[in-house]
């Protein structure tokens, strides 16, 4: 019923930013250290096991957590009370830039999809591509359009943060709440933010 047309053209800045997508560097599971394991809320009700498993962090680089494919992921500890910096940052940016269409906590609206569910299916590369390039969905009586954020620094400079937050939502590792406790803002995050926003 619904045909999906992907907008292939990316903004110039978007293309430049896309260049910053980390190339997948395989990290072996045996590299995983116990301190990278999530310690989730024991009462969490919406855990999606396969998504959670795929999102397991095997490596940490200055507060940035990576899965076995080298994609950014979340790190939640203290029985689900504490998050890594990027999950927190993603929550903030999501509720500034995305929730106007996609609803609070990635729950969707009457005219934009439930990202908490979309992120169960979308790969990191697909997510990045849609964010930068946009997409259009045509269904009977309802046309929905995701804009291209490729040249929007307020979004693209935080693309990984958004991904990490939404991935935590999709895995059921983080619920419908604003993160309270969080890891310190990493120095590398400060530097990258400054460089990306351009002062």
């Amino acid at each position: 019923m619904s045909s999906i047309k992907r907008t292939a053209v990316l903004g110039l800045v978007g293309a430049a930013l896309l260049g910053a997508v980390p190339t997948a560097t395989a990290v072996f599971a045996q590299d995983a250290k116990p301190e990278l394991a999530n310690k989730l809320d024991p009462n969490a009700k919406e855990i999606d096991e396969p998504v959670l498993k795929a999102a397991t962090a095997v490596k940490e680089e200055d507060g940035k957590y990576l899965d076995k494919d080298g994609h950014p992921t979340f790190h939640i500890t203290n029985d689900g009370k504490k998050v890594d910096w990027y999950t927190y940052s993603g929550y903030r940016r999501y509720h500034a830039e995305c929730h106007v269409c996609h609803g609070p906590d990635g729950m969707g609206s009457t005219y934009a999809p439930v990202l908490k569910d979309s992120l169960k299916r979308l790969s990191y590369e697909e997510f990045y591509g849609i964010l930068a390039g946009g997409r259009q969905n045509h269904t009977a009586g309802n046309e929905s359009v995701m804009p291209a954020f490729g040249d929007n620094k307020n979004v693209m400079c935080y693309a990984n943060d958004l991904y990490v937050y939404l991935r935590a939502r999709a895995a059921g590792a983080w619920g419908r709440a604003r993160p309270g406790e969080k890891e310190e803002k990493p120095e590398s995050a400060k530097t990258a933010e400054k460089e990306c926003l351009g002062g």
Partner: protein
Amino acid sequence: MRAVHLLALGAGLAAASPALANESVMKGIANPAEQVLQTVDYANTRYSKLDQINANNVKNLQVAWTFSTGVLRGHEGSPLVVGNIMYVHTPFPNIVYALDLDQGAKIVWKYEPKQDPSVIPVMCCDTVNRGLAYADGAILLHQADTTLVSLDAKTGKVNWSVKNGDPSKGETNTATVLPVKDKVIVGISGGEFGVNCHVTAYDLKSGKKVWRGHSQGPDADMIMDPEKTTSLGKPVGKDSSLKTWEGDQWKTGGGCTWGWFSYDPKLDLFYYGSGNPSTWNPKQRPGDNKWSMTIWARNPDTGMAKWVYQMTPHDEWDYDGINEMILTDQKIDGKERPLLTHFDRNGFGYTLDRATGELLVAEKYDPVVNWATKVDMDKGSKTYGRPLVVSKYSTEQNGEDVNSKGICPAALGSKDQQPAAFSPKTNLFYVPTNHVCMDYEPFRVTYTPGQPYVGATLSMYPAPGSHGGMGNFIAWDGVNGKIKWSNPEQFSAWGGALATAGDVVFYGTLEGYLKAVDSKSGKELYKFKTPSGIIGNVMTYEHKGKQYVGVLSGVGGWAGIGLAAGLTDPNAGLGAVGGYAALSSYTNLGGQLTVFALPNN
């Protein structure tokens, strides 16, 4: 001979000068069988003199007929009825249908503009449209992409069309228009995209642009006379806007004009409100940011501003000032005065003298409003007319990257665009309201043309410590600034109200109910669940001696965002799931007109 010649010239001038108000609109307003404006009348009372359906028999209402619009989006506004034809509009792509009521609502003509779908995501908060207007045999449509079209009401053929803005810069439209005299006045949206918003008058016959007045910038841009334009009784002075912005920030200042227009033919002034200043981060735009968040009175021929009143100087909460201005004549301290009543997003119900802009009443119309203690009514005070902001809820004082908690109302306001009604029989305003609070955290953003320019993280939840619902439907005494009665609603009351001479007040709810309540007591007299949530405005008309009540269903709008998923529960423990009741458990997307009538005996 000379004298005669002059006389003839005088007569010629009189004939050429625009007719007072607009005769066709005045005629339509005077005939309660029809509805020619979204606002029902120029005064925006949304009061109908029809009384066949009344407080005694409304319980017998039945569905008379229905019509699907074919679009599954938020349906705001209402159909119009002119003669035997009903005009129905839709959200994007803004289709217009002309239905012949004499022929069982047969589609006589259909107009479907071709618009670039890239306008969709530029429209903050859904692709709604608040409807058509009728004047001089033409149907006026202001499309999402800001194309203003005049259609021949008989055939649907385009008389003329003109582009009011540029969607690639974030300029879009959701509002209806005001036909007045020989002009049509239109607004523009884009407050979340850093647009420098304005109102513009076009010639009703040709579509030619006549004047444009901005919400901020140099006096000439705003069509303001520093000596003659007043605020709270005093001339605004030179550069009244420029002085309240840092540098060039006014150029991306917002102050959008996506609300309703009202008009007073006697004073020859029209009224509207300007929206929030861009960005939502107050730290990034020091100053009062005039004249965003302002009630405006302008002359329709020249655009000249007669008076302005800024309700929320230096907005820190996104309390857009665009809600409707309802014009009534009531006694204040024993003296009949021309009044303007406005229920602002900021939670205060204002009553002003609409001739002078004098502030008469400013009281909270939801008791939970907490961001300001009151509006300073002391004329001798330095802060006269300003809200007295509570530091704890000041996102400016708390600063960037600080989460200010428990602010009431939320950004969607104690009331959003959903228009209130006024009954001259009870002298009460009937107001659909939101009962929602928020946490608000501003942070720094950069501006890119055509991209959102928000700069704050928000979370919203039902007013804590109240009835748990997210709305109320209230009756308000505008002279004394008091709530007369208040009916709790589970969801925000997002449908526009209609008051009738039958002592009934109608409104729609987000679950999809059309409700009828007693205008004196608020007692519920009738309800019917329509196919989708209602964010449209109830309308009424008469056809072949029978009164009908109609309403558009189709959930969406800003209400469709948070409420679709259920708002966050502020009391839930970390990681808790669910939050408050989700609207999606009660209704689904739709696009339908439901028309009600009393049964034939």
